[in-house]
């Protein structure tokens, strides 16, 4: 099997399964909080009007599109993960896959959330483009920092890795002029907790499945 075929096959299987698992976990504990927050958002007079474009109707249609988005994101992350695993080389199985998944969770959820916590709809935030740039920079520096910290042989390079991990948080994420949320604080806190669990389940399963299928297709 060519390397490209292997990477894509592993990513397709692991991404699809982890995306479906994420959808199930999310429907139980994340989506109900989003729907609750939207009630506050609509009731709030200061709420920014949503665009008039098409949107899926609440119910099965919305769930279906959310599942599709989850699977697309999962396939995207799975392709990145399999590509990095193939570059790193060496032995991999579901156990070492769990470690790769944990690293993915740290890079794509924990690090950005330290400064830009997961938000329910109806929360004031800084300019979208600025936050997206900070998010991208944070994930790149965290990935590079972790790689140096874990794989570098020389202690000085390891220290450089640790510094890279800290840089995005020293710069800090763009913040709104006034922090305001239509939803109560308890709901916002519950959302952070719920997404932390859902994303942990997703990344750990994605990592384990990637390791498992990667070994199987050797």
């Amino acid at each position, binding site marked *: 099997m060519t390397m490209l075929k292997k990477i*894509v096959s592993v*990513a397709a299987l692991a991404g699809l399964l982890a995306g479906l698992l994420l959808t199930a976990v999310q429907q139980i504990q994340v989506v109900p909080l989003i729907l609750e927050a939207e009630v506050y958002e609509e009731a709030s007079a200061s709420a*920014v009007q949503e*665009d008039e474009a098409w949107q899926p109707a609440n119910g099965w249609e919305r769930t279906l599109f959310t599942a599709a988005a989850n699977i697309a994101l999962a*396939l*995207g992350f799975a*392709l990145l993960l399999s590509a990095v695993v193939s*570059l790193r080389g060496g032995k991999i199985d579901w156990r070492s896959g769990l470690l790769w998944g944990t690293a993915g969770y740290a890079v794509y959820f924990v690090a950005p959330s330290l400064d830009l916590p*997961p938000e329910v709809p109806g929360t004031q935030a800084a300019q979208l483009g600025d936050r997206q740039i900070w998010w991208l920079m944070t994930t790149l520096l965290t990935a590079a920092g972790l790689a140096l910290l874990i794989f570098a042989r020389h202690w000085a390079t390891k220290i450089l890795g640790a510094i890279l991990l800290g840089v995005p948080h020293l710069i800090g994420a763009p913040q709104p002029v006034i922090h305001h949320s239509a939803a109560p604080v308890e709901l916002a806190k519950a959302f952070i907790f719920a997404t932390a669990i859902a994303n942990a389940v997703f990344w750990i399963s994605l990592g384990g499945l990637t390791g498992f299928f990667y070994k199987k297709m050797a």
Partner: protein
Amino acid sequence: MSSMPKLAENVELQTRGHAWKDKLLPALFAATLGLMLLYTAGFAEIPVLHNAAHDGRHSAAFPCH
């Protein structure tokens, strides 16, 4: 005498060429495909895409709205 180092050099160049073709290129291609998927589902500001992927973006803690 001078052909030996040249041969070694050729072998090294070929090995490097293989590493590029067999390892680096597939990984780059797969990663680019992955980034395109992530951009479309997670970042693109086209309203229809945003609305369809809305709950997934909030759940993944991507900057949304």
